[in-house]
């Protein structure tokens, strides 16, 4: 995979030769203005519905292996 990634980066490096001085970056194409909505609480999904998809639900929570391996 390292060889493939190098090949792709070599192709990408073609843009290094372009003169982009003073060109602004585009992160998004739709011009949008920030707006605020009313801060009103809305119902969210029931906990049991959300937990239904979890690999290891337990007592209303997502169970995961311990962050620290046991010695």
């Amino acid at each position, binding site marked *: *995979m390292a060889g493939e*990634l190098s090949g792709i980066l070599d*192709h990408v490096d073609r*843009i290094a030769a372009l003169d982009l001085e003073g060109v602004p970056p585009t992160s998004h194409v739709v011009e949008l203005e920030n707006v605020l909505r009313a801060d009103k609480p809305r119902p969210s999904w029931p906990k049991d519905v959300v937990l239904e998809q979890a690999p290891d639900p337990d007592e209303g929570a997502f169970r995961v*292996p311990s962050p620290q391996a046991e010695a």
Partner: protein
Amino acid sequence: MGELLKLTVAEAAAKVAAGEVSGDEYFEAWREAAAGDELNAYLWRAEDGAGGAEGPLAGVPVAVKDIFCTEGVPTTAGSRILEGYAPPYTSTAVRRLTEAGARVLGKTNMDEFAMGSSNENSAYGPVLNPWDRERVPGGSSGGSAAAVAGGLAPCAIGTDTGGSIRQPAALCGIVGLKPTYGAISRYGMIAFASSLDQCGPLTRDVTDAALLLGALQGRDPCDSTSVGLEGGVEAPSREDLKGLRFAVPSELARDEIDAGVRAVFEATLARIEDLGGEIAEAPLPHAEHGISAYYVIAPAEASSNLARYDGVRYGMRKEGARDLIEMYESTRAEGFGAEVKRRIMLGTYALSSGYYDAYYGRAQRVRTKIAADFTATFADFDFVVTPTSPSVAFGLGEKTDDPLAMYLNDFFTVPMSLAGIPAISIPAGLAEPEGGGPQLPVGFQIAAPAFAEQPLLEAAYALERAIGFEGRPEGAGGG
């Protein structure tokens, strides 16, 4: 029953509205056709047509790319990491279709997380091209395109990030439309590259594309970047191209395009002139850098979007890990395929400290230049036209060992994605593949300024009628 399958969606919907055919009967006919899938186009198929609201699409079966969340129905995005996932909610795009009366016929196969141009990156096996089962259908919406072309669905929806609707539509000989970024809500559409992803229809003809777009488009409070199409979408009816100016990128002359594809492209330009349209060359000097910019920006966004697949809240988890970090690592190592890993690595590299300006920053500036090229061209022209893909459908396995060769398939579709503008691919004829063999479909791409979907559909409609493409793969059901 067979007669029903020959109808376009617009024709069938008119018969349902007139009471000549029931929505249930129409849906059932297509459900039976879909059951004969030998192309691996579907990952899931509906067992009944329950639901069925009244509306302009009453009874219309839609094949839905497996990237759209559908409540209670498996949604995998072509990935092992989402195997068994049945979302608790439905994407806005699918919800809008069903509110218009349409019903989900099935979920279609795709390149994993929409990363690919051949559908060979699906964790569930490649889709076969209905024209030649030794060849790819294109990607990433390959299942949707093959289903429509192969007579397994009357219409489909897909997503296009760098060409994933237009390229498979071209390679399968059908119509594929990528709307303006923001025309259709992305809510519930599994994210690949959020600043580029856009939903769109794959259909037999331009009229059906307009019909579906009309139902799909609109502002959605759940997607702050959705703005919809002002005034909606009407059925196209234009018969000529008088007074319209079509730009052919001047760089096209030296681009690598198969001889057969170039011949069909040039014959189509002649048809535009026959219809009264004017053709001239215009420079799009930065379009050739589209692939470079795209393969920085899209992987960068993907590397962030795909961080959520960690085996904690949904999807698969690799069991047996000693601690949390090992669980994350083994889940992602097993759950993601090679192309997804490649892009996550490219993306994290491009965003890493020390390389950010050289890669991500520069790519975003190239994106500005590409968009500016289009803006300058649209000051003098109504449309920009190119072949959709530099070749006809290639053989299965032909490009899997060379990711860069695969990426270059998107050469003509990526610039429009980066600029956020709408583009449609319509079938323009047949051409022999390089190296010989039976003839295969060639797509013709027309791009328009942002939110100019209606004029784009009108021009595509007039051209479609003049071309009169009636090619159908042998043995395909439907008409």
